[in-house]
């Protein structure tokens, strides 16, 4: 166990270094001189040198990369290029709670609905219930999230025009508050955010449950005359849950990608939207910071999955 942990941590450090290096080197080779952009066309050469020094851009690349890493360790992402005197963290601070709120709800609903759907499908395998469930799951799994956003928005517009309920088509209300008008804002994005991952989880749960139902111990349980309910809930279900803990890493990956489209289309001021804005204003430090943060989130999600796996399945000794 300890050995496994150490091995994973070393791997994690390696991945994080790789991700930060790719992110850094792209910013380093980025075309255009950010300081020159900052100062405009006519500038004082002395001020230019001063600013370049203040941002640490006059150092050789390895020195810059080293500083970048050291700052990351202190959760200091440096200064923004586009908005002078603002730190990157200051810019991201506003978006983080919104993105986390959106992602958390989506993840929760995905698991709470996706797992039972998959289990029911497995128990009713090859009936119309299974076919319907899996057909719908396949559809939502394959369809691009931004296309779903569009469909949902069309429905929202229709609702708004025909019910007089004043449904907002975009926006996010107050973060972490749930009055009726806040819920109206949040319902649609969370729903769209949920279905893709939910379909994935349902398919995984179904496969896992089917696998378990074929096992000898389930046959034994049936053979010794246990009622079906006990066989399924005590013997099969618990074991079918084991592979499902591995979804966390994948699910977080889903959520990160989806958030770019959902925040952009529904105009939600989260981290992803800030990233897109920064891309357009060529604010590299902000882009680098979000990339590193999101990539590390995925890596940590995978690590937690691995650890949970050993907790729920005592057969696995690492």
């Amino acid at each position, binding site marked *: 166990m300890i050995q496994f942990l150490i091995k994973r941590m070393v*791997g994690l450090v*390696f*991945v*994080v270094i*790789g*991700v930060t290096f*790719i*992110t850094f080197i*792209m*910013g380093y080779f*980025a*075309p*255009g001189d950010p300081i020159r952009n900052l100062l405009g066309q006519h500038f004082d050469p002395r001020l230019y040198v001063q600013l370049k020094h203040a941002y640490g851009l006059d150092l050789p690349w390895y020195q810059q990369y080293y500083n970048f890493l050291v700052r990351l360790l202190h959760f200091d992402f440096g200064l923004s290029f586009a908005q002078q005197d603002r730190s990157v963290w200051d810019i991201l601070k506003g978006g983080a709670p919104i993105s986390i709120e959106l992602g958390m709800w989506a993840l929760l609903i995905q698991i709470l609905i996706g797992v039972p759907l998959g289990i029911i499908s497995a128990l009713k*395998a090859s009936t119309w219930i299974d076919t319907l469930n899996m057909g719908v799951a*396949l*559809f939502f*799994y*394959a*369809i*691009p*999230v*931004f*296309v779903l956003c*569009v*469909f949902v*928005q*069309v429905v929202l*517009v229709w609702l*708004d*025009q025909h019910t007089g309920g004043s449904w907002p*088509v975009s926006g996010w209300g107050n973060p972490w508050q749930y009055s009726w008008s806040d819920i109206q804002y949040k319902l649609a994005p969370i729903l769209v955010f949920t279905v*893709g991952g939910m379909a*994935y989880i349902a*398919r995984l749960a179904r*496969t896992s449950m*089917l696998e378990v139902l074929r096992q000898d111990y389930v046959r034994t349980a049936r053979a010794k005359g246990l009622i079906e309910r006990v066989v399924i809930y005590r013997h099969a279900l618990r074991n079918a849950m084991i592979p499902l803990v591995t979804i966390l890493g*994948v699910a*977080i*990956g*889903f959520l*990160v*990608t*989806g958030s*770019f*489209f959902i925040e*952009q*289309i529904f105009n939600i001021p989260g981290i992803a939207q800030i*990233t*897109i804005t920064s*891309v*357009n204003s*060529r604010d*590299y430090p902000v*882009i680098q910071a979000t*990339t590193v943060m*999101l*990539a*590390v989130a*995925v*890596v940590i999600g995978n690590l937690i999955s691995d650890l949970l796996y050993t907790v729920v399945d005592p057969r696995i000794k690492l």
Partner: protein
Amino acid sequence: MDTKDKNPEINTPGVMFNDAPNLSADPLLMDQSDSAVAATISEVAERKPGQKSPTPFQDSMRRLLRDKRAVVSMGVIAFFVLLAIIGPPIYQHIGAPYNSATNGVVPASVYHNPFHQELERQDEFISSQYWLGTDSLGRDLLARLMQGLLISISVAVLVEVIDITLGILIGVLAGYYGGWIDQFLARFTDIMFAFPGLLFVILLTGIFGTWADDHLSAIPIIGPNGNARLLLVSAALAFTAWPLMARYVRGQTLQLKEQQFVEAARTAGTSGPRIILRHIIPNLFSIVVVVATLDMANTIVGEAGISLLGLGVQPPGSSIGLMISDAANMIDTHPWEVLLPSIVLALIVLSFSFLGDGLRDAFDPHSKD
């Protein structure tokens, strides 16, 4: 690569085809006597004397053609490919000259051009002049859709060419020789998997996008009309896609390496490179086709998504993603303009996913529960 690059089936490299006895054999190069052995007893019994037995490859194709969903998907894909390639030249010859107040008399070849604006004909619905209506700048939606499809398909093909080449090259070398190249592949894949979905593509196109606008638009055909960033987008998509391909190829190579026919070749003194070319690579056909088909769906969504975020095709160019984002603020007044590209994109992507699933089942009948 799609928003859904972590397919449940292709998430555990090497597992998918592990229990596939008919794949570890040689589906393409197997000679007649071998395939007769592979055929099941019932098939042997059914066969009339003198009739040739189907090769495993023909067997797979027959299974594929029995899969209704896959056949329909193939039809849909073929339709859209044809529409994108031969649609525009035909469409530009249909229609009478139109007397425009702003542009004078314009022939069909002009107003059926994806970039031509007819400012007095904005936001129209389907008509005999504009078969699918016009957008908010008075541009022909059908012409723009066909141009967008062409972009989608070109990017998908370009990405798959790079993906397959790199994937096979690195995957086979890693699987057959192991050593540092295997280590490199493993570490590199770990790093690329940590970039969730499109994040790497967003990073690359975001930072180098304006550079591409300035320097790549001089390239003929793929450069002008706002398409300059497509090379960048394709490169980024391929860069994120190939490690997965390489992992599958590596897994398959590891299995093939232990097969008797490879062992026999080695015993007969065949050199490593020759074994790879003659015995390993032909046997990778099915897994490469399946992974590439599923990845095409990812790639098409990826390009559309990047263009939708404003990082891919630039105006006045056309891409399905750009059409969606152009029409997004017209959703309450003219929902048709945003629904059209969305529905087309959904159809293409679903078709590629279904076809990929169908191909996998056809090549590997044991993969079904």
